[in-house]
């Protein structure tokens, strides 16, 4: 079974804290993604990576950074958490590269609350 694992299901942080969200996939997939999900806004892409140490900005990268030191692991970093970053964060991975029709495999999400 394919598996994308996110390190925390729920996380509560204080404004200004540095926050790390971790994601691991066991499918040897090339591509990994971070989305945030907000009611009425759907899924919005924050960052993605198509190879180790490679990263590309998505639609809403402001306030976030990412790290991909190993193929199976993709980390999302909130440098200084703010209340407007309270959201559900979803990690995903996909195998296909360059076809544009990659099937995404999602983790179960991390609900982050910034107080």
């Amino acid at each position: 079974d394919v598996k994308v694992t996110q390190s925390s299901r729920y996380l509560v942080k204080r404004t200004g804290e540095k926050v790390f969200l971790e994601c691991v996939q066991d499918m040897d997939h090339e591509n990994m993604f971070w989305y945030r999900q907000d009611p009425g806004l759907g899924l919005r892409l924050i960052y993605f990576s198509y190879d180790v140490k490679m990263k590309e900005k998505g639609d809403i990268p402001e306030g976030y950074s990412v790290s991909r030191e190993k193929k199976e692991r993709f980390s999302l970093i909130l440098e200084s958490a703010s209340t407007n970053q309270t959201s559900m964060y979803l990690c995903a991975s996909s195998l296909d590269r360059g076809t544009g029709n990659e099937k995404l495999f999602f983790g179960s999400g991390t609900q982050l609350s910034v107080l």
Partner: protein
Amino acid sequence: QQQVKQSPQSLIVQKGGISIINCAYENTAFDYFPWYQQFPGKGPALLIAIRPDVSEKKEGRFTISFNKSAKQFSLHIMDSQPGDSATYFCAASKSTGFQKLVFGTGTRLLVSP
């Protein structure tokens, strides 16, 4: 910029009825249109997908209808069951180069027993 518009935001259907969710896109370069299903506490999972070389694709009770000229596509769930209660997302992407999916805003479906 919202490139994929999805409606309705929520939908209540009686068991056995037909659920219909609609999406419209703007970018004519899009040529891959998947639907994702998300149950509470889970991440979305691919349900069914279509390419514009066909106008309809059916998998069991789930059908995608595609209208290229209108730049619209829809998901039909026949004989809807309580187990279909979930949030559904349409999406679109281009197949040339590495192109990321653009998601709609989601539809929360409730199938009443």
